[in-house]
């Protein structure tokens, strides 16, 4: 890249550059801060207006009561093994 042409700035011009720079940095981050503050409410509004449709294609596994659907033969085998250990 070609070198920049040297610019002669006075201290006063530098002062106004600094003030402007700080204002711009602050403005940008204030806007970011305001956006972040608003974001949870905005997302809540979107969820209200466009609720997520139930997923018809995905079938969650049916809820089971305790003990349902467990392999009974395996349970019997484990219980027998535990009992024989206790006797020994």
């Amino acid at each position, binding site marked *: 890249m070609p070198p*920049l042409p040297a610019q002669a700035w006075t201290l006063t011009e530098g002062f106004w*550059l600094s003030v402007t720079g*700080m204002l711009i940095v*602050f403005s*940008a981050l204030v806007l970011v801060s305001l956006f972040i503050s608003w974001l949870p409410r905005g997302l809540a509004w979107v969820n209200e207006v466009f609720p997520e449709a139930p997923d018809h294609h995905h079938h969650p596994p049916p809820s089971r009561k305790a003990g349902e659907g467990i392999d009974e033969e395996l349970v019997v085998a484990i219980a027998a093994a535990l009992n024989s250990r206790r006797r020994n």
Partner: protein
Amino acid sequence: MDILTDFLTTTGFYQLFSADGVLNLIMIAIGITFISLAIRKHYEPLLLVPIGMGMIVGNIPYVESMTLGVYDDYWSEDGVLMDEEGMPNASVLSFIYFGVKYGLFPPLIFLGIGAMTDFSTMLSNPKLVLLGAAAQIGVFLTLLGALAIGFGIEESAAIGIIGGADGPTAIFLSARLAPHLLGAIAISAYSYMALVPVIQPPIMKLLTSREERLIRMPPPREVSKREKMIFPVAAFLICAMIAPGALTLLGMLFFGNLLKESLVTDRLAETARHALIDIVTILLGFAVGASTQAKTFLTTDSLKIFALGALSFSIATGGGLLFAKFMNLFLREKINPLVGAAGVSAVPDSARVVQMVGQEEDPHNHLLMHAMAPNVAGVIGSAIAAGVLWGVLVK
């Protein structure tokens, strides 16, 4: 015999007796010092080892016609880098330095930083973002200080950005505005980032009372995945539209963060925060070290830059602290003003310093997560500050 004599005149030992020979030896000694500080004291080892080794390599004296150094690229009048036989008329080190000179490496490092940064503490307490903005006063007051002592405006802006406490940003801006000061600015920035635990605590204790240091802040709220996904795109749009000069750095930072938070690009995020950032750090550190040649580095300007660098960190620390105290005048739920010092974007060291100083007063006061908010906001703030200076001075 002539061949041997000719060869002997090309050796580094012979060249040491040239005008800059002693200065080269001093730079080599500084490089060795950096390496030993990194290994023995663990001062920023990931940077000081490549920089130190680069300094040693870049300061071995040689005959100029051998085309070995970072500055040895010879462009023809037609803008061609090839010689008559089609061979590149540039050294290997100059090709590596290309990434520094043309601002390629710093944005790639920001990509990796974005992929490893968690903005959730900032999202959970948005007002702490303002402390990251306040700390950028260090950039602009240092710019004024540099202008007052005789540096040109481009040089002053490049020196001022040291106050952003962000190595890649400092290198990115100074490579464009003041490439002849790049070495001193980079060394100054990284050295003071390593010295944050030494510079900040006295200022923090001076500017806050014991009651203020004891303030406890409520735990941060939980942030949803959606907020974390939307934030990088929205924040980039806001900041880049205001300061387009920052779009390269902020674009890569928020791109990396989106790779992390989208949850569908884990492989890319992993690469960005590990392999990519490590490769670029090696090349960047080495090239910056090799660019610190004695003629350009051992000058009174470098001493002034080191002094201004210390000033910029101190002002940035004070700026964040004092703004937190100012905010407390209007807030019902007070901020612990120590957290303001973390607006100096040396992530995560300044947040750790806040935690440490807070726990000296109250061992059960955990300020680290709160301090991370201004810490990461400071990264954004320093990139915006660099973007403003770029926008005004690069024409």
